[in-house]
């Protein structure tokens, strides 16, 4: 099962308020419930992606001044997959 499919199922199954960061070996995903009252902010550069409940936690990451920063929308699945790195 892909991380997107797993999170779609999660949104249908879970009740209540949540903002989740779900990660496995190759993927990183963020999803919020439909009400979206738990805070969340995502920062993304060409090199990394980071998620926190407030910008203060991201403010000192290298290159954050050039990051794209936004608040994830409710019940939208944001997923990233690690690029293959050949040795």
């Amino acid at each position, binding site marked *: 099962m892909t991380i997107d499919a797993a999170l779609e199922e999660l949104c249908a199954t879970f009740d209540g308020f949540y903002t989740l960061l779900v990660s496995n070996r190759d993927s990183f995903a963020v999803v919020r419930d439909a009400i*979206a*009252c738990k*805070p969340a*902010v995502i920062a993304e550069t060409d090199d990394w992606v980071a998620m926190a409940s*407030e*910008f*203060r*936690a*991201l*403010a*000192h990451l290298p290159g954050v001044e050039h990051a794209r*920063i*936004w*608040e994830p*929308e*409710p019940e939208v699945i944001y997923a990233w997959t690690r690029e293959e790195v050949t040795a």
Partner: protein
Amino acid sequence: MSTTAVGSTDAPAGVTIHDLSQTTLREVNAALHAPDLDGEHVVEHPFGAHSVAVGVDAPVKITVNGHVGYYAAGMNQKAEVVINGNAGTGVAENMMSGTVVVRGNASQSAGATAHGGLLVIEGDAAARCGISMKGVDIVVGGNIGHNSAFMAQAGRLVVRGDAGEGLGDSIYEARVYVRGQVASLGADCVAKQMRTEHLEELAGLLKAAGFEDDDPASYTRYGSARTLYHFQATNTSAY
């Protein structure tokens, strides 16, 4: 007004620089609460700090260079605050007067419960923008999230982009103007006719926010259908 550079030696005349990488937030906010405060103030390196420039009660100009955390410029009175970055939850909450301009995006509950003044968000605002607004004017350059203007009592909310679900749920007498699409309207919120006075009012708000090139006629007005104002016996089962 003396020129005092706090944590910096490069302040232009009449400008006080408050560097949050050198000074505590409590000291900066205390300085901004000084009696008879005047002149221009610049806050550098906020790094997402919460409660930056809250509770200012003086006709001064405050520029914040960077992203801020929760409740920035909350309870503002008279001050002209510009945030050159994004703002977290509750920017300008409970503002009474003055102006707050966010050059980036704002998180949820922007302008919540605010009684007066003008809040401009040049980017997007997230959920619950203008929740329980009580007289403030809010102009959003982009989109707003769901449940915006929930229980909005007075004031005007202008949205140049789209609005999320449940716009104006249980709205009282605030007026909402949206140029783009509305995902859905909340309970008792309806689209209304744009009469001459509304076109004039909207033109004034767009001009005040720096969007005077917009055509007010391209907006739709939303407001209360006024069907929830009084208890009705036929609704008993809903309680």
